[in-house]
């Protein structure tokens, strides 16, 4: 992976550390970080590829406005990663092109 765009200053990040995976790689982040922040700290080159153009895209606004950080989180597609706070064991993955809609649960 390329060098991350952001790094964490431990002195400014009190609180627990949370273990998540970004595109399968283990990353340790802070309790207040969003899934989009985790992706930036992990150094992924993109959080999604554009559904029409295919070019890489990454978080732009970090406050729920731009929808550039649509990612697959714990298997659910098109989540606004900047509005999702990390949890232990969270699986954060790049969304390639159009979202894949998970198959519906079988009726019980």
């Amino acid at each position, binding site marked *: 992976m390329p060098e991350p765009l952001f790094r964490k200053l431990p002195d400014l990040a009190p609180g627990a550390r949370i273990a998540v995976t970004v595109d399968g790689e283990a990353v340790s982040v802070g309790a207040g970080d969003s899934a989009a922040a985790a992706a930036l700290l992990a150094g992924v080159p993109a959080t999604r590829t554009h559904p029409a153009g295919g070019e890489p895209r*990454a978080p732009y*606004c970090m406050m729920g406005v*731009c929808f550039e950080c649509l990612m697959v989180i714990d298997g659910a597609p098109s989540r606004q990663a900047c509005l999702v706070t990390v949890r232990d064991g969270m699986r954060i993955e790049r969304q390639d092109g159009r979202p894949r809609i998970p198959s519906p649960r079988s009726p019980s």
Partner: protein
Amino acid sequence: MTAGNGAFDVVVIGAGPAGMAAAIAASQAGAAVLVLDEQAAPGGQVHRAIESRILKGRDDIDGLALVRAFRASSAERWPGAAVWQIEPMPEASDRGFTVSIIRAGAAQRLAARQVIVATGANERPVPIVGWTLPGVMTVGAAQILLKTGGNVPAGRTVIAGQGPLVLLYASQMLAAGVRPAAILDTTAPGALRSALRHLPGALADLGQIARGLGFMAAIRKAGVPVMRGVRDVKAEGRGRLEEVHHLSAGRWRTMPADLLLLHEGVTPHTHPAMSAGAAHGWDAAQLCWRPLLDGDGETTVRGLRVAGDGGGIAGWRLAAMDGERVGLAAARALGLSRRHGPSEADLQRRSARHRPLRRFLDAYNRPRTAILCPADDVVVCRCENRTAGDIRAAVEAGCLGPNQVKVMTRCGMGPCQGRECALTLSALVAEARRMTPDAVGHLTIRPPLKPLTLGELASLPASVQAAQALP
């Protein structure tokens, strides 16, 4: 405190300074108040994560006090709740509203007699060549990363733009021991001269002005290169940002960069009130849309109010005063009033003293025309990859307004629903037709305000009445 299952006297949307102050005031007057907020903790963007970070300065201290007062109030708080529809009740509009939300993966509907939209501001879109490249973000985005997790830029960082947030964030970076590679100040030459007439009045806010000058001094002392009068900032790179180009003092310059942070001020987030049918007008001083409000913060839709920066940019302290006043007005409309605390008139007088500083900043940090109406090769709609040239061509082909351009080009049709392009779209159509943005209008904003899945929609109880009938 609920007035009944799923029914509230006042529903406040947004837990920033205006929303918190409105909720405190209305609940002090005895109203049953619910506050809906997308974030996990109250504070809004300005006081984001204020309860868990190290406080620095007066703004943080006062912000934390407001959050504590909000938590101590009787207002009910629902964090992690996104509003996707606000509609006047069908029978008669003076009966109130149905507010549809999504929370914890389930949709639900609430009844509100009064609605206060306190959704604050968004950063103005900064459509430049290459702004869709990974490595290009807003200054506000970088500040959110700092506030919520102590995260700072790791590589060569160029800040391009203007306004108080640029100075604030640059000095916050320096305080954290991180040095920007350069600051490209896009303030137009001559802007200070045109702003000076507002300076005498603005001196009432000497503290704020001194603070800004202090940031500038810190940046100078740290030896950060600052280019003045910058224009035509461009981002270039293959797959991610590699170089930043700009024009200053008549010369093109190129610098290598890993991160480019853009900021050209903030504009009201108008989607929620627009979607409910409230009339909006173009603010020629702040170059943005704002809702038409009466003295009580009421929109053209009876019972629907807007408080704080969502009604016009004024900064967080004025937003809190406005919120308190609008909260009291909403309570008054329900026949309620509070015994203690400043009156609506007191709050009005107090906030009027601080208006001149904002007028100074509006003139001083007025974005250049190219930010509002970019060149043909610049992407305007990030979601659908539509350029300014595509929009001009659509107008040339006969589109009269933003809605027609949207249908013809898909500009504004993507997941962000026009949040990053609607302002530019109206400005471009107006420019091409030699009209004002007011005359060509804004994209029609329709619910759902937030995308929701069919599964989430299916989780809705059949009606508000059905929800109320639940035990």
